[in-house]
């Protein structure tokens, strides 16, 4: 199967995102693949379209700037460097819970108290998984919250676009 898409790896990485409390294996990020994240981004854009928000350009712009920012930050904070593809891949995979949030926004409006709590929970979930994968792949210690905070900011912007 020479498509270059390794389905087993994609499934493994998706499972890592979906079980935020399970410890991640550091070697899964050795192969950078952008197939999974592309699918998730498109799904996110599709759910936004369903909710009537035609702001796809902003999603692209913000994700590009956010990936660039995380790339610079992680290169400065870790002992070993990262490649841009790796950062984009991890951030794209952890966008999966955000798709759940935006599909909720299609049906219910998220501007009540329940919506705010749900949004906060989902942002926490996304950033926790992303920081967990980064920490295990880059062997950074004692910095998980520090990595989770910028991820939370990035996913918070996505959530803002979903809500408003």
């Amino acid at each position, binding site marked *: 199967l020479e498509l270059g898409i390794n389905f087993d790896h994609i499934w493994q990485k998706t499972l890592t995102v979906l079980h935020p409390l399970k410890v991640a294996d550091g070697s899964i990020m050795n192969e950078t693949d952008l197939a999974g994240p592309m699918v998730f981004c498109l799904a996110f854009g599709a759910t936004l379209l369903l909710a009537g928000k035609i702001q796809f350009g902003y999603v692209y712009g913000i994700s590009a700037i956010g990936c660039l920012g995380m790339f610079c930050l992680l290169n400065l*904070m870790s002992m070993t460097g990262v490649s841009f593809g790796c950062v984009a891949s991890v951030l794209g995979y952890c966008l999966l819970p955000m798709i759940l949030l935006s599909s909720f926004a299609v049906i219910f409006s998220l501007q009540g108290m329940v919506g705010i709590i749900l949004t906060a929970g989902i942002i926490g979930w996304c950033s926790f998984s992303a920081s967990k994968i980064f920490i295990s792949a880059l062997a950074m210690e004692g910095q998980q919250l520090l990595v989770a905070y910028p991820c939370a*900011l990035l996913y*918070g912007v996505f959530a803002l676009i979903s809500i408003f």
Partner: protein
Amino acid sequence: MHPAGLAAAGTPRQPSKRRIPVSQPGMADPHQLFDDTSSAQSRGYGAQRAPGGLGYPAPSASPQAAFLADPVSNMAMAYGSSLAAQGKELVDKNIDRFIPVTKLKYYFAVDTMYVGKKLGLLFFPYLHQDWEVQYQQDTPVAPRFDINAPDLYIPAMAFITYVLVAGLALGTQDRFSPDLLGLQASSALAWLTLEVLAILLSLYLVTVNTDLTTLDLVAFLGYKYVGMIGGVLMGLLFGKIGYYLVLGWCCVSIFVFMIRTLRLKILAEAAAEGVPVRGARNQLRMYLTMAVAAAQPLLMYWLTFHLVR
């Protein structure tokens, strides 16, 4: 040379960004270097061999041309990959000239404990006794190990959070639109640059010999964004009263913090130990420190009052 050629050609499963495009020069170049009688045949063989990259000579006609084509195409591939590596090195070297990456890395060597304690210090600097930065053989210790060392993680995160919170605050007044974020970001960045330049100019005019680098200064000036965020958030939750209370508290805290930190850096060593030294020079330096510290609350108010209505 051969392993490099094999490695470059033998990874079809990597995404296209990783693969070095050397198949083109592999096919075109070696055939122009050789005034070969069997050029048509060797071109055919070269096209077959270059993607495969195996390097076995053709068994049939014109073994000479095929034998020459294979190592040359491998060499061309290796040359192409080394050219790409050289280009990357050039970019890295030039980036290093404009942005001092290793110096920046020092400011980001933080961990969660340091960030927690530093945030506590920014909001409540009154009980902290020892403000001196520890040194280790002439170089300052990394922020991980010394709470007094400046870092750039907190100012950077605080700046970005401030832009987002400002966008949120403006959004709750009108409608939220993502261009607001860009506008806020560029105006805040402009104010920061102006402030850094003004302080550098005044330090130059007063001819102070300090070890206060520009990055240190950016770090210290960035700490006020933490207070600004606190004020705006309280203003969003509790209205104007909450905003003024928290902003007032943060203004006083950052004033004390800046005075105590800058005193050690700008003033002469004798004065830093608490002994008041007379003399025009030291007085000028003290006025400069007070001016820098007083500018912080003013800027904090100026940049946030339009966000809380």
